C-alpha cells in the first residue's frame, strides 16, 4: 500500500542541531584557539577544517580601501560514519554560532548531553563568553519522509492529520510539491517567549516525493550571558541550558503530535 515512510527505518530525524548564538561575529582570537579545541576533540571529532574569512572592500576610486587579508575566524570538527558515507556529527564554530549537528540521531536522552558537553568543552577552550556574550539558544529538527508509491498520488494528506494547527489545509490534496511556512512565539522555560519557525515542504528528490519538516526554536536570553556557570547552571531563577533545551524539544514533539497522522506517530515512536 502506498504511503509515506520515515527516511531511515523508524527514524524521521535527518538532522538535529543545538546552537548557541553570540552577540558578535567571532574574531581572530577564536581562530587562534582552534588548535586547542582540535586537541580537545581529537578522539571524538577527528576531522578538522578551518574556516577563513575574506573581506572585500569596494570603495570609490578617489578613496581606495585596502582589502583585508584572510584570517581564520571559525572552524568545524566532525566525525565520519564508519561506513564513510558522510558525517555522523559535526561541531561548527562560525560565524557567531557554536552549533552541534547530529546526523545519526538516536534519542534525546543521548543527544542532549552530547550536545551540551561539546558546547561547554568548546567554550572552555575558547574562553569566548568573557568577550562575546551569548544571546540565544537554538534547537533545530529536520524530519524527512519519503513517499513509497506513484508520485501522482503523493498528497500531503497521506502524512498529515486533517485539521492540524500548523499547515494550511489547501496543501493537503494538491500533489507532491508545495510549501507552508510559519513562525510564532510561545512561552518556554522560565516563561520566556521563544520564536518557532516551521518550514514544511513537499518536493521531489530525484523521482521520489519527499516531505521535509524543518522546525527551529530560538530562545533569547532575557539578558545576554557572559559566564559558563550561568549558562549551564542558570541563575536568579533563570533556567539552565539543559532546561531550555528540554522545553524546546517538548515544543517540537508537540508540533509533530499535532501534525502527523496516527500511523506515522506510532512508527516513529511518538505514540504507543
Amino acid at each position, binding site marked *: 500500500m502506498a504511503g509515506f*515512510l*520515515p*527516511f*531511515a*527505518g*523508524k*527514524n524521521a*530525524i*535527518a*538532522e538535529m*542541531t543545538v*546552537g548557541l*548564538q*553570540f*552577540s*558578535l*561575529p567571532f574574531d581572530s582570537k577564536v581562530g587562534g584557539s582552534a588548535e586547542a579545541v582540535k586537541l580537545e576533540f581529537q578522539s571524538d571529532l577527528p576531522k578538522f577544517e578551518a574556516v577563513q574569512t575574506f573581506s572585500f572592500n569596494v570603495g570609490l576610486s578617489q578613496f581606495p580601501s585596502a582589502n583585508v587579508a584572510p584570517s581564520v575566524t571559525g572552524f568545524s570538527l566532525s*566525525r565520519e*560514519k*564508519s*561506513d564513510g*558515507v*558522510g*558525517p*555522523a556529527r*559535526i561541531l561548527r564554530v562560525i*560565524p*557567531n*554560532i557554536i*552549533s552541534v*549537528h547530529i*546526523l*545519526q*540521531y*538516536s534519542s534525546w536522552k543521548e543527544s542532549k548531553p552530547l550536545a551540551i558537553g561539546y558546547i561547554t568543552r568548546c567554550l572552555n577552550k575558547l574562553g569566548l563568553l568573557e568577550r562575546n556574550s551569548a*544571546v*540565544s539558544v*537554538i534547537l*533545530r529538527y*529536520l524530519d*524527512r519522509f*519519503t513517499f*513509497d508509491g506513484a508520485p501522482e498520488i503523493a498528497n500531503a494528506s497521506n502524512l498529515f492529520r486533517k485539521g492540524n494547527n500548523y499547515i494550511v489545509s489547501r496543501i493537503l490534496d494538491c500533489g507532491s510539491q508545495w510549501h507552508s511556512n510559519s*513562525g510564532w*512565539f510561545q512561552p518556554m522555560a522560565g516563561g520566556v*517567549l521563544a*520564536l518557532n519557525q516551521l518550514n514544511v515542504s513537499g518536493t521531489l*528528490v*530525484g523521482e*521520489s516525493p*519527499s516531505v521535509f519538516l*524543518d522546525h*527551529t526554536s*530560538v530562545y*533569547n536570553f*532575557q539578558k545576554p550571558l557572559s559566564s559558563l556557570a550561568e549558562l549551564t547552571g542558570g541563575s536568579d531563577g533563570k533556567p539552565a541550558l539543559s532546561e531550555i533545551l528540554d522545553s524546546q524539544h517538548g515544543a517540537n514533539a508537540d508540533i509533530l503530535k499535532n501534525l502527523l497522522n496516527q500511523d506515522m506517530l506510532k*512508527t516513529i515512536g511518538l505514540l504507543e
Partner: protein
Amino acid sequence: MRGTNFNFVNSLVSSAFVELSPVASGCIFFDKSSYVVDVSMPVLFDVSNNPTKELFDRLRDLKARYATGSMPDSTPPSEKAFQDAKDFILTLPLAQIVKPAIHVASDGEVNFHWAGPDFQIDLGFYGDERFSFYGAKEGHDPILGDDVSVKDGIPKALVGFASAA
C-alpha cells in the same frame, strides 16, 4: 556595510515601535525584549540518502523477480514474508546502522544480511510475523534468536554490532 543596511531599514520602520540592530546572522528587534528573527545555520545532511525507500524498492524488485519458484523444488517467499520484512524495516534505526543486503532463499525465506569488517548478522522471515537471527562480532559472544516477534524489532545487541558510528 551591514550597519549601513540596518540604518537604511531603520529609516523605513517607525522607531517608536521597533529598532533594528545588527547581529551577524539575523536581526534583533528591541521593544520591551529582544528576539532573533532569523538564524543562518546550514543543513548538513545528505538529501540523497534514503535507506527506507531503497530497502522497500529492493523488496519490490525481489517480489517481482521471484513471484514463482526460481529453481526446481524451490519455494517463492510468501506475500506475508515480504510484508513482515517491510514491517521490520520500519523498526530499524537506519540513521544509526548501515543498510542490510536483502536476498531470498530457495526455501521461501526473505533474508537480511549485514556484513562489516568485524561483524556479520543474518536474519530471516518466512511470513509468520516472526523472525530468527544470528549475529557475530569480533570480541563478542555470538548471539542468536528464534521466533522473535516482528513487532519487537531488531534486538539492541544487534544494533550495537551494526552501528555505523
